[in-house]
């Protein structure tokens, strides 16, 4: 078995919660396991859900959350009696708002370029997929060897510039990635 990565493919399950004080949480909610918060899978138990009230167990403590108010993507949540205000973004609205990769028009160091001339054998991911740092994205054949090219950050695949079977030059842009590591 290969490495087990924390982010699964589905980028629609990744959200960004921004607090007024500038603090930011990247929250990935997998289908059947615990949430991944800022890249760390947290053993948080969801113990109660009732209208606008949630309760969680974490670190041996109970957390009572109550939705105090909600205005579009802004929410005030009371946690154990104290209010916190967040604005919420899906990964795509977050990228659209230019909050990630402010310089994305320029050269992005997270983009994948061909390290050597060769031929694309296979591409493992699709546009819009989440990718983990170190996870193989495509396989490139050069000098009769197949090389797996990996992502150098956690991110989302924005654009795939090549197709299987295509020959590429050294330093040719293969994949555009927006990093979600900040």
């Amino acid at each position, binding site marked *: 078995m290969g490495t087990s990565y924390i982010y699964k493919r589905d980028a629609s399950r990744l959200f960004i919660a921004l607090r007024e004080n500038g603090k930011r949480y990247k*929250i990935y*909610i997998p*289908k059947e396991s615990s949430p991944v918060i800022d890249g760390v899978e947290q053993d948080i*138990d969801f113990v109660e859900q009732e209208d606008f*009230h*949630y309760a969680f167990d974490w670190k041996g403590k*109970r957390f009572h959350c109550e939705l105090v108010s909600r205005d579009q993507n802004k929410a005030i949540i009371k946690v*154990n009696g104290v209010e*916190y205000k*967040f604005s919420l973004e899906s990964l795509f609205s977050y990228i659209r708002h230019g909050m990630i990769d402010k310089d994305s028009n320029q050269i992005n160091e997270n983009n994948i370029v061909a390290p050597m001339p060769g031929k694309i054998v296979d591409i493992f991911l699709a546009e819009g997929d989440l990718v983990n740092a170190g996870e193989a994205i495509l396989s490139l054949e050069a000098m009769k060897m197949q090389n797996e090219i990996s992502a150098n950050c956690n991110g989302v695949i924005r654009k795939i510039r090549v197709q299987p079977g295509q020959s590429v030059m050294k330093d040719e842009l293969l994949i555009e990635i927006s990093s979600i590591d900040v």
Partner: protein
Amino acid sequence: MKKRLLIANRSEIAIRIIRAAHKLGMLAVVFQSDRELDALYLNYADEIIPARDAGNDKPIFLDPERIVNLALEHNIDLVHPGYGFLSENPDFAQLCVDNGINFIGPSPQLIRDMGLKTVAKSMAIKAGLPLVPGSDGPVNDAEAAKAFADKIGYPVILKASAGGGGRGMRIVEKPETIERNFKSASDEALAAFGNGDMFIEKYLQNPKHLEFQIMGDKHGNVVHLGERECSLQRKHQKIMEEAPSASVTPAMRKEMGDMAVKFAQSIGYYSAGTIEFIMDEDGSYFFMEMNTRIQVEHPVTEMITGVDLVDWQIRVALGEELTLKQEDIQIKGWAIECRVNTEDPQNRFSPQTGFIDKIHFPHGDGIRIETGVQSGSVVTPYFDSMISKIIVHGENRADVIEKTLKALYEFSLIGMKTTVPFCRTVLQHPEFINATYTTRWVDTVFTPEMLENDDDELIGALAATIMYASEYLQLSSDLPTYKNDNLNVWILNKRLNY
């Protein structure tokens, strides 16, 4: 025939007194105010008198004539005033006595005396209690003020003798500014009250508030039940109390306690009473005032002494002799009380009113809950914001701090904000833990940011995200290309596993 005890109060203290009445085999009678028709305490009473006070400008609890008239109509033997409202109103006590109703508290004359600061202080001086150094009467002019201040030391506080509400009051840090301050304060007092007379007193910068609980009977016996520290205050009102105080040594406890007993005996005091002291950073202490009622924070004393103060209040009123002996009163462990007020500690403790969707109290060994509300109760703007008290008893101070913090994490109230997060913050603050906190803590140390913590913030982010995401994913799942199930799968799984 069972004695009939009327409680001229509401909320948690009404329930507390009902419990005491039942312990003594009495019938507990309460008022039902139109301002609070579904109050919790009504469920505990044996008899309810409808107050029909909707049209009156004050609720029944502040209306001495109506209380006494209704008491007579309902054949009441004793009246317990609780705290607040008319509990320290000598005219009310007198009215009860004049109509042959047993008022549970000291004599009306003593309530009156202790309510007048100057009278109380002169009685305290007679009994040998130390007072904050200050001028006995008004000082004549700025020069006399300076001479006096030089003698007692700076800082000093100048107070208009007719003053109130902070007007005509100045804190003077150094001799250079006393003359200027004296003139401006005196002018201000003259303009505001038509009287420019000024007192001068030593100003304690970082004082602690200590108080001794005493209990006396009508036969001249008085005991003290140790002290409480109530330095934690906001807007000059207590919010957390502990007993005993870490700032009082056993020797001091004996000295101050004996002093309190001597004072109470010298004035012929009976019933429960509290003698308040202010303590300076150097450990010197001074008499402030005497409260002639049962206090909100009486449970901390009950927890560490095992003495039922309300029970004794009633028995003393009936003329019973105290069986408590000073040497038998032992302090066991440590107790903390946290007041649950519907106030927003993130916004200058502004009061909150509304509907309590759900309230959950902590349970466990050494945890005592006094509450005037339950799930479904309404908090109205007509009465005090204190809805409950959480009192915790531990083996020692460190133990009770830990236990209280745990208990507060177990508390939850859905529907309004309370002072509970504030109390949690206090319990974790070094100045509380090392017991150096003073009455200035809220003003000089506390900031609303201290209420926040990283774990709560992270969970808040998660909760906000789940609420947002469930809508977001719901929307996406309506699209034909959407390939995932609803988000709630994780949630349901977690719930099933729990």
